[in-house]
């Protein structure tokens, strides 16, 4: 809608598919009863995209993410990452969890936490050191290398988790409500951090959130989920300027429109509305 911003030109308009989720269905089998968490989810994400998934609480967002991450087997349908069917955690993927305090190894220093996955990938030592240093610099934690995670604030711990994911050089970065547990100011900083890392590294990002503002501010596209059992309610293209700014972007009339639209969709989802199939 506005002139193409500078950042967008550098991004190749490739249309290769990074992630393909086809008719994903997940039923949890319990004792004597089964719960259908995800009914039928189909969407694709192109290489280099930043897509947000938003849905009412209990919409099976975490189930979806765990299926995509290969942490959970689906009941039907499939998840295809870079042309390969996901049956377990794939090599080109990194996940940032909501529970930062529980996803970092408390017995390791910040540096060791970031370095461990690289050691597992058998990255040579010099290269490893460079990646760790650059990742920690990128999240603004170059000075905290020797600290243990529990010596840091919540926002800083989540930065470490992001640095670990970034240093791993994934093709797909999954983020499961990563900022739900940090305070509002830290959250704004971290949102901008994700945007800038995404732009710099050209990584594909799938960002799951329950926060409507966050999804509109961050994403190029927002996939709105229905209530459980989950289907895709609508895919909303976020045609905001590529250069996002907490103050400027959020006060654009278009931001308000998109936000209102997603908000309405979520309200409908809560009311049990489903797309006609």
């Amino acid at each position, binding site marked *: 809608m506005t002139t193409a911003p500078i950042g967008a030109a550098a991004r190749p308009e490739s249309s290769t598919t990074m992630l393909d989720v086809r008719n994903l269905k997940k039923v949890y089998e319990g004792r004597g009863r089964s719960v259908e968490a995800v009914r039928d989810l189909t969407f694709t994400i192109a290489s280099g995209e930043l897509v947000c998934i938003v849905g009412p609480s209990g919409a099976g967002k975490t189930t979806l993410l765990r299926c995509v991450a290969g942490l959970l087997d689906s009941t039907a349908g499939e998840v295809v990452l870079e042309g390969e069917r996901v049956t377990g955690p794939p090599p080109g993927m990194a996940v940032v969890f909501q529970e930062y305090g529980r996803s970092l190894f*408390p017995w390791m220093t910040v540096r060791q936490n970031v370095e461990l996955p690289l050691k597992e990938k058998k990255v040579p030592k010099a290269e490893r050191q460079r990646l760790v240093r650059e990742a920690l610099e990128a999240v603004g934690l170059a000075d905290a290398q020797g600290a243990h995670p529990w010596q840091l604030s919540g926002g800083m711990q989540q930065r470490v988790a992001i640095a670990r994911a970034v240093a791993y050089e994934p093709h797909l970065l999954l983020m499961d409500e990563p900022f739900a547990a940090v305070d509002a100011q830290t959250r704004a900083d971290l949102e901008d951090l994700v945007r800038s890392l995404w732009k710099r590294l050209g990584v594909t990002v799938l960002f799951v959130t329950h926060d409507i503002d966050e999804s509109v501010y961050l994403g190029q596209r927002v996939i709105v989920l229905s209530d459980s059992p989950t289907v895709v309610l609508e895919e909303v293209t976020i045609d905001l300027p590529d250069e996002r700014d907490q103050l400027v972007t959020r006060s654009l009339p278009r931001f308000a429109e998109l936000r209102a639209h997603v908000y309405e969709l979520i309200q409908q989802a809560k009311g049990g509305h489903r797309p006609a199939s």
Partner: protein
Amino acid sequence: MNTLSAGRKVLLLLAVPVLLVAAWWAATADSTDFFWPPLSQIVGTFGETWFTGRFTADVLPSLARLLVGYLVAVALGVGLGTAIGSSRTLRGLLEPVLEFFRAIPSPVLVPILMLFAGIGNEMKVLVIVSGCVWPVLLNAVEGVRALDEVLRDTARCYRLRPHSRLVHLVLRGASPQIAAGARQALSIGIILMVISEMFAASNGVGFTIIQFQRSFAIPQMWTGIIMLGLIGIALSVIFRAAEARLLSWYTGLRMSQREG
């Protein structure tokens, strides 16, 4: 301020022991009871009883057997406990059996083990192992089971190989629990070290104490008991130092959680 509080700490630490020793000293000062010799007499014979050959002839063999038995028990307990804690099937199969064996007091195994392993060092080490292994094993099982779900998922996502998973996730994660089990095992080990030497032995602290008692060398017998107490304190100090080093992260984590 800091030195003052450190001084206070030492004072508090030593207050009760000093009081007890003083009470003992005073109560037995002019004792003529053959079985309750004055503490002064016991302390007087301590040096010549233990440091004229018995330290290397009795104390060191005892400690060597304790050390070997204890280390074998810890290795066995951590190994089996990790395996059992990681597998639901194994747990279901073995848990009732483990409870049974754990409930058997190890000293009753001494006569049985003597039949199989003789009366040499092997028997004594086996007795120590058979008693020390349970707290380590059961705590390791619990520690491994209680590993954080998110941490497990993280390890899976970053595709940690089984070996690194074991070293960096499972063993480190369960280490606070394992240490708690190892601490219990240490005091059990000291008890079993003494008991195994009381049955059939030709050296050791337990053996020496029994010898003194049988030959009515009562002050010497008392020094043996004091010696055991001192060994217990020394081992516990060493254990705590090692624990503080290995689990400094855990102490820090707990403190930060309490504050936050």
